[in-house]
């Protein structure tokens, strides 16, 4: 396996509002933990186009978990603060392995 950056997809309905905030949060987690990642911010409908490259999806929308082979983390905690520590931990765990 070529050692490369893990690709994290950050998605919301419009690709402009909530994914922007979640994108920043994921960037911060990666930086603080020295994790090399490439973050792609997109609309949820664009996710299938990136699916073969992605290691993780962080999204604020409803998603069919059976549709994808990579893990999915709910990004809402980064908007409201509710459950934020747990979501951060999940992301760290997925990216560290």
């Amino acid at each position, binding site marked *: 396996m070529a050692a490369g950056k893990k690709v994290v997809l950050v998605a919301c309905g419009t690709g*402009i*509002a*909530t994914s922007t*905030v979640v994108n*920043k949060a994921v960037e911060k987690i990666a930086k603080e933990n020295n994790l090399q990642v490439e973050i792609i911010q997109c609309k949820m409908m664009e996710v299938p186009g990136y699916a073969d490259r992605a290691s993780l999806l962080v999204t604020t929308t409803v998603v069919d978990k059976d549709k994808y082979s990579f893990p999915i983390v709910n990004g*809402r905690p980064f908007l409201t*603060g*509710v459950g934020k520590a747990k979501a951060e931990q999940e992301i760290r765990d997925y990216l560290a392995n």
Partner: protein
Amino acid sequence: MSITLNQDLILLDVEAGSQYELLSIAADNLHKQGFVKDSYREAVIAREKVFATGLPTMNGGGVAIPHTDIEHVEQAAISFCTLKSPVEFVVMGDENSRVSVSMIFMLALKEAHSQIEMLQELMGILQDEEALEYLKGETDKESICRFLQGRLPDVA
């Protein structure tokens, strides 16, 4: 490019029987002020049905941040509305959960991947119980306007 939030975009004690009625009222007002196109109202309602924006906050309340694609917007603006009686929104990312919402920030954003600071500070308000309590109780539009302009970068 600044984002407008003036007193005409603040609607207090709105009487709405449902989330869609509330979205219509707020969207019509944005349209009346010239910030969004004709198509915005239907687009924001359609978007809410597919990608719900209800957010349960730390204080046990709920805030919604309805918005839609940039092509329906003429000029960036935010409308803040409080409700006389809360209405239910579907929780963002969880179609089986509902949250009782007492205020909304309707976002009319014009550029993709922009306004990061403003969006982050807006989420900061949603995580700030004191700010939420203040916004829920304040009855003076000028004060609310000054408060939000002070907290949100690029908002005037």
